[in-house]
């Protein structure tokens, strides 16, 4: 009996740090892990359509959450297309017309390359804590890992997803699943993160599966092929002149 009591007390003692975490502490640690000063990545987007799948490859340079430059490398139709995000503005350059077009308004809700991601999804840059009030719903097991389940409710107007649910891995502070909802409570998108890998002292899920709940199809896989963190990126990468280079 004494043994059982001792092990119960011991396990409660070990769990205590996890329970003591507040929702905002968990999200803050997740942001700290996921956000580097700069990121240079090469990635593949595998878009599963109703008629088949196609793969788009790109290289992205980003600094903080406000600046990002993406250059599409493959397939041939996309090669040379570039995107530049500066704050809340987004430009797209096409070699076919040699023009940079700034996207605005409802165009931002359009799908990127026929994927399950919208331009607005790509533009999202504010920290979750700034946009949402957080609530820890509990713990459960997902992909064989212990996770915290958090509910996020919008505290600012005009967000694409007024409600979210996030499942955060307790070991590495990375999201393993996310559900994005409309104001009505309708599920709009579902994200599944997997294959978490270490990049220096940080951990990143290298495969993200996006599924637009309102679209038929198998969704879109976003695969991180290379990732370099906190490397210096020259300023001209975040200038409009980079688009026509």
């Amino acid at each position, binding site marked *: 009996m004494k043994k059982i009591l001792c092990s119960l007390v011991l396990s409660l003692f070990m769990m205590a740090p996890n329970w003591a975490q507040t929702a905002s502490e968990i999200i803050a640690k997740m942001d700290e892990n996921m956000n580097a000063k700069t990121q240079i990545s090469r990635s593949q987007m595998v*878009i599963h*359509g*109703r*008629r088949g799948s*196609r793969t*788009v490859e790109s290289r992205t340079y980003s600094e903080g959450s406000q600046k990002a430059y993406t250059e599409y490398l493959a*397939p041939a*139709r*996309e090669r040379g*297309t570039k995107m530049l995000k500066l704050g809340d503005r987004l430009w*797209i350059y*096409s070699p*076919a*017309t040699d*023009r*940079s*077009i*700034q*996207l*605005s*308004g*409802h*165009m931002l809700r*359009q*799908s990127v*390359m*026929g*994927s399950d991601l919208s331009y607005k999804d790509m533009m999202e840059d504010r920290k979750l804590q700034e946009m949402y009030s957080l609530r820890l719903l509990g713990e459960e097991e997902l992909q064989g890992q212990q996770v915290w389940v958090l509910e996020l409710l919008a505290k600012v107007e005009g967000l694409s997803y007024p409600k979210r649910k996030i499942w955060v891995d307790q070991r590495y502070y990375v999201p393993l699943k996310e559900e994005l909802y409309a104001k009505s409570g309708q599920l709009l998108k579902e994200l599944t993160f997997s294959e978490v890998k270490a990049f220096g002292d940080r951990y990143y899920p290298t495969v993200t599966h996006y599924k637009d709940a309102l679209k038929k199809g198998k969704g879109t896989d976003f695969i991180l092929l290379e990732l370099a963190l906190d490397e210096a990126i020259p300023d001209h990468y975040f200038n409009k002149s980079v688009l026509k280079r």
Partner: protein
Amino acid sequence: MIYFLLKGIWRDRSRSFFPILVTGMGVLLTVFLSGFMQGVFNDIIEQNARLETGHLKVMSRAYAELASQKPNDLALYEADSLLAHLRQEYPELIWTPRIRFGGLVDLANAQGETKAQGPANVTALDLSTPSLGEAQRLNLQKSLYKGRLPEQPQEVLMGEEFARRLGIELGQSFSLMGSTMEGSMSFRNYQLVGVIRFGVQAMDRSSLIMNLADAEDFLDMQDAAAEILGYFKSNSYSAERAKSIAAAFNEKQAKNPDEFAPIMFSLRAQNNLGQYVDYANNMSTLIIGIFVLAMSIVLWNMGLLGGLRRYKEFGIRLALGEAKGQIYTALCIESLLIGGLGSFWGTLVGLGLCYYLQLYGIDLDGALEQSNVMMPSVFRAKLTVELLYIGFIPGLLASLLGSMLAGLGIYQRSTANLFKELEA
């Protein structure tokens, strides 16, 4: 006898003026409302047929499920062979492919920076095959506000309001951004060669018309088609024939499990147009029904009042030995003559009003500014053969029914009372 009764109607105006006026007004309203409603509904249906639905339309099954979203990624493959098959199998129709898609028009200034931008609804038509008659079908030449129709690749037409909003002039180029059939980003420069005014707010606000070959190039849709529209060569829609063609075509595809197999829809089966047609017919029936009922009640009352006024006349005629049935018959024939006269002028004036509205219409341009529904901004009536009898017959019937009801009093008169009255 008829001549005698007509003389009576003419000489005793108090007997005929109001019944003729009331019948005429009722007939006028029936003819005018029926003609106007027919005109408006016909215009809406024809407009939809020409711009969107065709008399018949073939799409892929998957596309048809989401047709309102214009999902070109679900379009028909091997469209050329399907077109050839349709043209061979159903030669009484003109089959023509169309593509519709959304895009972003971006007009640059001298420095290449965005000067103006707006979302476009692009309709691509085969303008390079005149035998398909697409330019005539959409009345493009007449709708041309300025400029000309596209002749060379990458020349387009733009809705008048859209062009005005962008501040674009004829001959200027702009970029169009959209997605290919596969979902890739697509960009092209086009030159504006003509500005059109459809008179449909929803289209003038954002429409762009381009040649089918340009759209196929923009969307990577070579040998693919979003929609194949069929129009009867006679130019008039035959609901029964369209239904049977669609049923026969779909029957042949019934065992094909491919979700991208073609499926055919008749005009009635698209955009709730079947409901519109039924609604138009029901409304006409309802208007006529209400008219006959209301007129009967009014004319019955007028007949009663007239009967009271003519009580003495009927009494004398009965005393002189005229049979009750004879008086009743004469009254009914008289009412038919009154109804005929009222219906004649009512139909004449109603047809005149319809003709005027067929020519000039009622311009509701301002009222439809915010409308997204594809409907004409000028509402016109339509003269049809049925307008000749749609008010006339109910006018006659209402008058007759009123008098028949009122005249029943003649049979209730007893000889004893009659002599008392005459003595008085």
